[in-house]
């Protein structure tokens, strides 16, 4: 049975389909693996095998997805012990496709962070080097898949929260087009950016999971689904495809990461693809725009955690205002409070145009940059993260350095377009992620290209000690 550990989710699904192994056996195996997690990747693990575990291996679910009756706290003390009365559409879609919930994974509080160190329930260790971060905010999901305590997982990406931890943990992470997957039941961080997506062993698994996740949801007015059914990737060559490389000359890009990414560009050419450098003139302002838009939306989205109806309520108060203030002061972590304050300020009367208004303009310029780029090329490719996994505690005192971790991943959600990160090699013994972005709804094409590259790169997972 321990054979399952080395298999992709798609292969396990085939074994279940052929009757070689039962869904219950697969669930049991992974439940045992998840229970043995010692990286801090899980906040909750299912204890019982469901009556009908389904045709797909079970899935690890980022804590911010509401699952009925299962603790769902978005990594925040303010929601500690909160039991949702409903299940997120994305999770239900997975359940209906045959993937049961295996457990809830650790994350940065309310998805605000790039290292998982902002979790209200402790950090997560990177299975490649336990002294290092797994990335964030979907750090628990990424670490669990990389460490083989989950066959696959879902996370959310707002400015890079799927792709960056996937990169730092050496797995595949896909952020779909905004609107491809329902946001209903995802505890909101920044509503105009948040998107659910897969964190998987390989590209085929990502496609298989996206197929189950996507779809228009009447409960989410901004959801559209994908216009065409997701096809499983099969490309062996990249003939005729044009790749626009962006960011390889950026200051702050680690030379080792740049080197591995350049080698990946060579492989694209070996497979018949064309590589050219492209400009995205406004994308460099992505971080600035992002850190206005996302906190602004978050300041409103997180205002409901007031101690009145559910979640934490401070025992220290004399009146309503005192209850609000102490509940929020005690319930939220430092980074969340920082962003609520930034967002509140950015929306204040007299500052709205200068901050929120300007950020929205930058956002449309970035979207225009991508639209112009896709006139010349089929895909935009970049390093996923400027560095490999950094050490725990290395950037916690320096929010700006932390924010720059998302330099290459922030422009895509600002433009609403899909992007995948695949592992493309090692630098200093740690995984490097390579990002492939395409126009809205081009998921199948992105995954096809990623699949061809994945085959030639032949990346091995976490080295067994």
């Amino acid at each position, binding site marked *: 049975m321990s054979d399952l550990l080395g298999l992709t989710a798609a292969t396990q699904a085939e074994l279940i389909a052929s009757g070689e192994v039962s869904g219950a056996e697969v669930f049991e195996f992974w439940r045992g693996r998840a229970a043995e997690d010692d990286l801090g990747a899980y906040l909750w693990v299912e204890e019982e095998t469901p009556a009908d575990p389904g045709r797909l291996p079970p899935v690890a679910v980022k804590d911010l997805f*509401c699952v009925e009756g299962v603790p769902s706290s978005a990594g925040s003390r303010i929601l500690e012990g909160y039991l949702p009365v*409903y299940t997120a559409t994305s999770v239900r879609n997975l359940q209906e496709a045959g993937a049961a919930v295996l457990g809830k994974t650790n994350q940065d509080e309310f998805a605000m962070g790039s290292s998982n160190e902002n979790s209200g329930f402790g950090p997560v260790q990177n299975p490649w080097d336990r002294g290092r971060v797994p990335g964030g905010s979907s750090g628990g999901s990424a670490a669990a898949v990389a460490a083989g305590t989950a066959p696959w997982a879902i996370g959310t990406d707002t400015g890079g929260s799927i792709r960056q931890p996937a990169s730092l943990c050496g797995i595949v992470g896909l952020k779909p087009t905004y609107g491809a997957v329902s946001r209903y039941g995802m505890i909101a961080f920044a509503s105009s950016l948040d998107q659910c997506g897969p964190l998987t062993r390989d590209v085929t698994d990502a496609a298989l999971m996206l197929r189950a996740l996507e779809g228009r949801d009447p409960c989410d007015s901004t959801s559209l689904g994908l216009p065409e059914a997701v096809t499983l990737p099969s490309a062996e060559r990249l003939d005729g495809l044009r790749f626009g490389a962006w960011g390889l000359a950026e200051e702050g890009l680690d030379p080792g990461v740049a080197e591995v990414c350049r080698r990946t560009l060579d492989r694209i050419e070996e497979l018949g693809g064309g590589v050219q450098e492209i400009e995205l003139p406004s994308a460099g302002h992505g971080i600035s725009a992002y850190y206005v838009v996302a906190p602004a939306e978050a300041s409103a989205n997180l205002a409901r955690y007031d101690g009145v109806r559910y979640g934490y309520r401070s025992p220290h108060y004399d009146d309503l205002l005192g209850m609000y203030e102490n509940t929020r002061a005690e319930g939220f972590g430092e980074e969340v409070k920082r962003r609520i304050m930034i967002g509140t300020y950015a929306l204040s009367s007299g500052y709205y145009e200068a901050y929120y208004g300007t950020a929205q303009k930058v956002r449309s310029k970035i979207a225009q940059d991508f639209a112009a780029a896709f006139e010349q090329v089929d895909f935009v490719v970049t390093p996923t993260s400027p560095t490999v996994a950094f050490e725990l505690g290395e950037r916690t005192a320096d929010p700006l350095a932390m924010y720059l971790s998302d330099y290459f991943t922030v422009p895509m959600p600002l433009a609403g377009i899909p992007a995948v990160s695949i592992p493309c090699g090692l630098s200093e013994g740690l995984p490097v992620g390579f990002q492939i972005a395409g126009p809205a709804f081009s998921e199948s094409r992105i995954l096809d290209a990623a699949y061809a590259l994945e085959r030639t790169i032949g990346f091995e997972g976490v080295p067994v000690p």
Partner: protein
Amino acid sequence: MTEAVRQYEPVIGIEIHVQLATRTKMFCGCELSFGEEPNTRTCPVCLAHPGVLPVTNAEAVHFGLMIGLALGCEIAPSSIFHRKNYFYPDSPKAYQISQYDIPLCTGGRLGDVRIHRVHLEEDAAKLVHAGSSGRIHGAESSVVDFNRCGTPLVEIVTEPDLRSAAEAAEFGRLLQATLRRMGVSDVNMEEGSLRVDANVSIRPAGQASFGTKTELKNMNSFRFLERGIEAEVARQEQLLAEGGTIQQETLHFDPEAGSLTSLRSKEEAHDYRYFPEPDLVPMAPTEEMLVRARAALPELPAARAERLERELELPADTAKLLSFRSELGDFYETALAADSDHPRRLANWTINELTAAVGDGDPADTKLEPPVLARLVAMVADKQVSASAAREVLAVLIAKGGDPAQVIEAQGLGRAGEEELGDIVDRAIADNPDAVEKIRAGKQQAIGALVGAVMRETKGRADGGEVQQMIRAKLGE
């Protein structure tokens, strides 16, 4: 009030919040509440649980479009919702989803008053404060009932076109009648399905620019609105006459004490940090939606009053009453369809005798059928029954139904015949020698005593004028 005070002209604008009579709430599937047990009409969405998203109620948009079209507004090709942020326990999300700079409808007019805008939003929850203060400050505890939370609201804002408290109340009644006629709201001010705020300022007569305005909040009847505005205008006039300045503030009118108290001044005004609601897509009404909204509009009170006045030559006040209370108008027009010979007399019977009997109720809820009223009125016109006897017949018809002729027959209310009446008059003359004496002496008013005696005797089955004529004839006058 002194002459010096009279030189100011009031400038008044009205903001009306109307709860829409949709089946479900504005952004979730909960059914609207009508006095159910607290917190029984709730779901994760209207309780603002983590992860939920709003979905706009299509029926509320339809009603919003109907109102916009009825008021002659321009419908925005694409309008958006904003978040209006504030912390209070009646707002579970800590923001209200409302419309801000691009509302559903702009411009328009009702009567002589221009409409500034019409927009959609959601209602807040209801707070109940235990303890003597009745407010959240000083309350021993406060509880929240979320049944009302998320009820669809339409806010209608007028231009500052009103020039007196009476005009404001009159406009409010027309708007109320219009919305009631459209069936988009219960428009019940006491129950809060229609809430009125007034912006009040005064300016020296002839001055074009506006004075500083104050806002009168939440008056729960048009009578209180009128009295509140009067009180506020008087307060402002006195303040200016004494050389003071008007503060921009929100005021509460206490109808019992007739006093105004300040709720909050501008310095404490909230910064609502409005920004576009990212969870919703723009509302872009299709041609089909507009056609459907237009088709759903009934004849509105202002148009009906105009038609009744023009086609049936009813007096303006009568036509207005029949139009503002559309249940009366409907009853009247149904009766008129059965017998169209006496439109004015039928109208008078409807607005006087019928309303005296049913009060604010709907005559259609009684046993009286509209054609029966028309028949009764025709019998009065044809002098088959006296007016006062017909009133008694009407009371029976309202309570028990039936046919007027049968009721008259059964109760002996038919008009007294000439022979019978002659006998009664003879008796009255014989019984009242004093009055006869006086009449003969030229005191004409003394005839009233004789007429009264005859009317008492006939129990109202005779016509007063006819009785008088007969008395004069018999006395040889």
